[in-house]
């Protein structure tokens, strides 16, 4: 198990989508549709890039370049949390 400090939750992602890109999405809805594309939630590629930047600043480390290319919340969270766990 990972600790709270090194895992980005669906709820946090929803907050970041709102703060960084102005996309309002209910965390429960995001959880239920975690394989839906970011585009369908209204998040564009620059918006996702901003979220990556915010997380990199928060955790003080770089994330894989593929992070900003993830198409869905699940793909993004899997990649980011995997990287945070391994310290990549």
């Amino acid at each position: 198990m990972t600790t709270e400090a090194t895992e980005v939750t669906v709820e946090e992602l929803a907050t970041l989508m709102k703060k960084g890109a102005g996309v309002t999405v209910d965390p429960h809805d995001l959880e239920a549709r975690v394989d839906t594309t970011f585009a369908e939630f209204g998040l564009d590629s620059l918006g996702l890039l901003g979220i990556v930047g915010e997380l990199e600043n928060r955790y003080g480390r770089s994330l894989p370049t593929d992070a900003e290319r993830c198409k869905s919340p699940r793909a993004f969270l899997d990649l980011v949390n995997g990287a945070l766990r391994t310290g990549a």
Partner: protein
Amino acid sequence: MSADRTRRAAVTGIGVVAPNGLHTDTYWKSVKEGLNVLDRITREGCGHLPLQVAGEVRGFDPSALIEETFLVQTDRFTHFAMAAAAAALDDAGLSTGAADSPYSVGVVTAAGSGGGEFGQRELQKLWGQGSRFVGPYQSIAWFYAASTGQISIHNGFKGPCSVVASDEAGGLDAVAHAARAVRRGTDVVVVGAAEAPLAPYSMVCQLGYAELSTDEDPARAYRPFTSAACGFVPAEGGAVLVLEDADRAQSRDATVRATVAGHAATFTGASRWDESRAGLAHAIRGALDEAGCAPEEIDVVFADAMGIREADTAEALALTDALGPHGTRVPVTAPKAGIGRSYCGAPLLDIAAAVMAMEHGQIPPTPGVFDVCHDIDLVAATARPAQLRTALVLSRGLMGSNAALVLRRGPGSLAQNDKENS
């Protein structure tokens, strides 16, 4: 160019966001009354700068007009443009996307600057916190093309899109560019300009302009064509028009508010106001020629009115150079004396005022100007009733551009005009 001369570009929608009105109708009422809304600048972080008076857009709430996903990635100048575009499309009866195809609608904006406020915020993060703290929307928000992009994305318009960056007079050039697109076959072009130059960084950029008025008295800061002329004051805001093939407009029962009949532009060098006389006169002749319009047909001139003696003299003389004796007889007005110059937005606001002047048969006055020291018939103090069929709009930029645009009254305006003046 194989522009189809039988296609005419009609104005079927107008949207305004201006210091003297957040809606087209309130703007016209303020312009007609000759309100002077120039005032002390209250925008955050600007109080210490040696530019104290401007035309501020106040009470504008972008969050009530624009979706949050667009708000976070756009500057105030784009907020103005998007709000004005929505109003113009609504006025034209196209707010629900009545276009036959997304490719039949284009977008053109003019810009003299860009997103200065947004850009300053991000650059302060750059040198305050580091490059990792600059948001990615900085890459698009500051850019002078942002308003064209966001209007097209927001409305799904995929027709010809462009940005005209040719100084303040580029506002007229953009309308001419849009009219050409319509004549070449694009059904509808959303065209306009809005600027937001009242933010600390943007204001510092303007402080070097010799023509900038730094008079701290709002009643005295911008008095073009008078012996007390001491420069111009900047302003926020602008206007957006819906230009449309006139036949198409009539076939869908849209009101043709005016048609764009002619335009020409010249360049005579930065702040060479003496030389702008010949440049402006040449532009006027070119616009009349394209419109097939005799000098005597011009019923009103919306002047550039730079507000410094040398430039005002050049403009007054250019009118006589191009129009002959009619140049001293034709009524001239400069509503911008009451609202300031919103750079590329200024000529768009003048077009909006000219169209409504023709519709209402009223020449709006030049606020705060009484002691005219040039040989022109400047409309001062109060609006002047007049039958107006053709209007000439002039614009110059600090960097040397000069442009003239001829507008013809729409066919629907005649009855209203006659009724109001009977």
